[in-house]
């Protein structure tokens, strides 16, 4: 029974995931929501990194890395990134 479960659940979820790939919408990132998520989720594990610590491009990669680690949705990841890049624009242009 255990074997049946384990070999059926993951493929089923995978098919479900692929069939819902259209859910990944292109709604514009919400930096206000990103600010809230930034303080809620990042600080839970570690000290906050300053936006100036990384380049814009490096932040994109780091946020995708943190999407996996922190269990963020794609939209939440884009929101946090938008907030960080907004802060960067205000303080530095790297």
């Amino acid at each position, binding site marked *: 029974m255990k074997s049946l479960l384990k070999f059926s659940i*993951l493929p089923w979820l995978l098919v479900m*995931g692929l069939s819902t790939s259209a859910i990944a919408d292109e709604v514009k990132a919400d930096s206000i929501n990103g600010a809230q998520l930034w303080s809620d989720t990042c600080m839970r594990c*570690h000290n906050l990194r300053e936006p100036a610590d990384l380049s814009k491009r490096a932040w994109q990669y780091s946020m995708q890395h943190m999407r996996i680690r922190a269990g963020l949705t*794609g939209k939440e990841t884009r929101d946090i990134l938008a907030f960080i890049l907004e802060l960067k624009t205000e303080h530095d242009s790297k």
Partner: protein
Amino acid sequence: MKGIIVGIVLSSAVVSKLLAAQDDGLELGQLRQEVNELKQMMLELKQSNNKLKGFAEEDAVNVSSESELSKLKGTVNEMKTELEGNSKSGFQLAGYSSFDWADTQGEDNEFNGVKFAPIFLYQYGQLFQFEGEVEMKVKDDGTTDTELEYATGTLFLNDYMGLQMGKFMSPLGQFVQNLHPSWINKLPSTPVGFGHDGAAPTSNVGVALRGGLPKIANIRSNYALFISNAPTFGVADDGDIGIDASGKTTSSDVSKTWGGRFAVDPLSGMEVGISGATGKAAEELVFGDTIARDYDVFGIDLMYNINSIDVKAEYIQQKIGENILSPLKGGTWRAWYAQLSYQFSSLKIEPVLRYSDYHNPEQERNQWALGLNYLFANNVIAKLAYEYNTDEDDGAVNSSANNNRVLAQFAFGF
């Protein structure tokens, strides 16, 4: 009389002639004046024309500068693109490093740790990311211990699901997968039972589905489900009986392990997770055969950060079943810890208090750790700590678990 009249007429004629001549003179003067004025106007027009010519030349220079600026911008963008690779894919180097010093009761103090753990990130658009961490540590004899902590590719299927493949940090619990890097861990050491070969599984080789879920009743949640090769069970090199739950590229002919973690964020800054896994552990007997032992994992974890107060707690256990073919008894390897810290951001200092407890069929250990951190920056941290260690049974081979220690560490993340 006639003469007078003729005289008057003649005089009138002469006067009128004279007047007419005077009028002609006036007209000529006016004409001359008009000509002069026209000349003046011509001169002014010429001057204006010259000025306009000058402006036109200046404009031409400006237009040329603008085109040069535009060309320069183009060159900079080209160089940027060349430097960063094409727009869809690129690399980033992240990671952490730490240097340790320890003064252990009954031993000489020593610089006892140098660790360098670079993390390579490769990303292709929003579709795929590879991440790999190599942990390098200097050993007692001066040689370097290198371990591939994880190497995994994640295919992002949609906003809520990533398919992860390769060797990944165990998704069970929280400390191992997210809190072990030295710039994140608030003390120089790991809680007892949460290191390698303790109660907490460290890594898996297999596949996982993970991601964040849509909000339900305004509560965020996330999940991770995995299938991986089996762990092994047996006598370790140090003589202790234990579970090796680090990822391997063989399942040793026993069935796979499968499990996962589900976590909710009931409050802002809080996450509560529950983990579980089941399967078989492989044990190699002395005469070479491999047998399967039941293997089950259970864990709960909590993280809460509010107003500079940080609370972390976790319980994890791995259970090995019995097998009559083996002389080794099964049992439960369990560990838990609770940690409290407060960050005085204006002073950049952070006191930390942690209690941890580890139990296995051979050992009963617990530890109090009190630390003080100084934050040069949020990712550059100096730590000083005192550990009070107790080994209830003191049964482990070469155990120094009862020795208290003063620890110092300099850690940074990049």
